[in-house]
């Protein structure tokens, strides 16, 4: 390891004592490569890496050998050696090597088995430090269905809470998220959480710009598909340019070329924070339609935020997807607005179908992690609707509501739940 390493002292010490070199190469090199990006890892990621390798280091050597023995056997059959797998390198070639190996399914299973043994130990540490968390998922007002047709894939896990919407629908979200009418300009629940907790603890992820508040504290991570328009346009143009002018073998090679296309400070507030700048770049260039479709950006950003940053409070707001225009939809990296003179139309029914599965994916993603299990209140809200879905521990007060609840009351409950 180079002397200029920026790893934490604890992890650096483990590297120096050769821990990574003693582990099976396909396991250790992946993580070794990950921690090379130390500067752009979230605190939760850094903590995970430190705890994982500290656990392996302090465990009985014989047990560790036994744990990794099946993986060593698979690696041998796969032909992993110094030549095919240079020490401390995990490149695209290694990814291809794994993917194309006839033993890839076996390798995956073996790695999964290893984590099935390690994760409960790591999660027990997390659970001991558990605290209340909050997730609010907002659906746009234009959906063509009522609450009886909402959240169908997950509603069996929670309870539909009757709400008393305000007379002015423009106040619906402000009352829910700030406890006050729009004109009052109060801080949102996520902004309050950002001010009260550690960095990257509160996220606001949205398709439009409705959640944005000029007075938001800088500690709030605020991602908006709309507000990243300039950056998205630049990425789109760069991708087109690279595809047309350079030899790119495939998406992975393309991603490698795009690694340097970081967001500029002028293209969004997240550009000022190197961790968030890299997060945004990676999210937009993940190849999952995040550049193209607003709600895909919202869903994938949320999933990535959960995996990487483990926020305490997350407010997610979807929008309406536009209809895909004939012919120009073939041009993935073209601006549909300018490429086709046909007027843009909202696809409200398509959006409804899209979101029904995204609610499930988002809820599932949170629940994969010990930080969220048994202590998180999930509120699924449709703007303007007189019901919401709550999935929460039994002691979440709103679960007992029998009469329609005012949105200000929902805000108050969230605030109490988060100890703000």
């Amino acid at each position: 390891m180079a002397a200029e390493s920026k790893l934490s002292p604890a992890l650096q010490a483990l590297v120096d004592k050769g821990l990574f070199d003693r582990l099976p190469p396909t396991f250790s090199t992946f993580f070794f490569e990950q921690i090379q990006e130390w500067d752009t890892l979230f605190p939760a990621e850094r903590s995970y890496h430190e705890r994982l390798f500290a656990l392996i280091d302090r465990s009985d050597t014989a047990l560790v050998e036994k744990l990794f023995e099946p993986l060593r056997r698979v690696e041998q059959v796969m032909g992993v050696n110094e030549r095919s797998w240079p020490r401390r390198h995990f490149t695209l070639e290694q990814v291809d090597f794994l993917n194309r190996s006839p033993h890839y399914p076996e390798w995956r299973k073996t790695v999964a088995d290893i984590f099935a043994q390690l994760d409960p130990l790591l999660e027990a540490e997390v659970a001991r430090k558990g605290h209340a968390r909050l997730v609010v998922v907002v659906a746009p007002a234009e959906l063509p269905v009522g609450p009886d047709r909402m959240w169908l894939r997950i509603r069996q896990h929670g309870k539909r809470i009757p709400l008393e919407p305000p007379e002015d629908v423009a106040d619906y979200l402000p009352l829910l998220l700030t406890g006050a009418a729009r004109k009052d300009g109060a801080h949102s629940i996520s902004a309050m959480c950002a001010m009260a907790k550690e960095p990257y603890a509160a996220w606001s992820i949205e398709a439009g710009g409705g959640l944005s508040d000029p007075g938001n504290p800088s500690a709030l991570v605020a991602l908006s598909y709309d507000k990243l328009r300039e950056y998205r346009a630049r990425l789109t143009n760069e991708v087109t340019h690279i595809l047309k002018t350079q030899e790119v073998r495939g998406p992975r090679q393309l991603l490698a070329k795009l690694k340097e296309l970081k967001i500029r400070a002028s293209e969004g507030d997240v550009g000022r924070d190197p961790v968030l700048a890299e997060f945004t770049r990676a999210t937009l260039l993940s190849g999952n339609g995040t550049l193209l479709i607003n709600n895909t950006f919202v869903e994938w950003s949320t999933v990535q935020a959960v995996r990487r940053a483990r926020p305490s409070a997350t407010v997610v707001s979807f929008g309406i997807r536009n209809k895909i225009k004939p012919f120009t939809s073939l041009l993935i990296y073209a601006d549909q607005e300018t490429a086709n003179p046909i007027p843009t139309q909202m696809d409200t029914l398509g959006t409804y179908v899209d979101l029904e599965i995204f609610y499930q994916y988002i809820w599932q993603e949170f629940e994969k992690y010990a930080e969220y299990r048994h202590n998180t209140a999930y509120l699924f809200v449709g703007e303007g609707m007189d019901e919401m879905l709550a999935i929460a521990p039994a002691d979440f007060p709103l679960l007992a509501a029998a009469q329609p609840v005012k949105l200000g009351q929902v805000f108050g409950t969230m605030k109490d739940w988060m100890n703000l």
Partner: protein
Amino acid sequence: MPALTKRRFLQLAGLSIAPRILPKRLWAAASREAQSARKVIIVTFGGGVRYSETFAPEGVHNIPRLVDMKPKGLFFKSCTNAGVLSHYNSTGSILTGNWQRVDDFGFQPPATPTIFEYYRKQTGAGPSDAWAIATNKSFSLIGSGADRTLGQPYGANVVLPKQLLLEAVEGVVKNNAGAGVASRENVLQHLETILSEGYEGVGWTIFKAGGQLDRTVRNTLTHALVEYINGPEAPSSGDELTFFIAREVMREFSPRLMLVNFWDMDVAHWGSYSLYLQAITKTDRLTGMLWEEIQSNPSYKDRTTMLVLPELGRDGDINAANGFLNHRSGDPSCRNMWLLAMGAAPGEIERPVFHVDLAATTAELLGFKAGEITGRPMREILS
């Protein structure tokens, strides 16, 4: 838009190249033989689709045509892709009978020979008798394998309709002419230009030598393009053009062996479940239309086996990276597919079969030997 006749289009395109494939009398003889023999069409119901959105109870409403066809065909409940979960390798495995592990994005031919090569070399079938019509634009090398004793001289004609369409649309958008792509005539004009001038760069490998398309082939493709653009349902997708070209190739050449690769449902990568479902239903419709064409075309009726299967699935909703968006987890949702064999005795088969078994089965159906392959013939189809 004003009607564009085939004659006018041919004039516009300046098609004056002499036929070069076969002398006419041999052509006629070959055509007669081809029309009387058994034929196989492999349809990859693709781009990646899960059981749960197709033949699972909760998915059948997405595929009304296949549901209607199923009782008339032989349905294999379990057809497994045990190979690499990329479109190119998966389709290559179907066509070679061996699990392919080459470049995922089509920069290498399959490592072992395809059924096209075995078929053509052993039977002496001409170049018009084996075709691959593929929406996936990275499939230009799918028509023949890397084995030098066989290879391209015996391979299939490969047509990549979506790439053609992409080039045309891109041209319209760049020129920003009039109503742009809102005008089908604009798109058609660009399609014409590409076909007459620059097809080599967009994936055609049809009988080509020196970059010239055979006249008969070009006429056939031209007719398909005109039909496509003027279609009553205002088609605009790559799979729809693939269908029109496949149908035209069937009508003009009656090939005995053909791959039709549908791919639009890979739009799932964009992260829109509704677009994914729409693509499934569209592919279902096109597959049904292909079977209708087989039933109404005397060269195919009662002598054709159409093998329909997804080349791969997509990640499951539980514990996967991002569910339907991807197909890389290797979980059962990615690997466990179905196979519908039309033209075989009706029934349902519980016995698990594999994607590589299609090559061996096709070899038996068409009467050639497929070399050393992993797959085994599906006797249920042959009986």
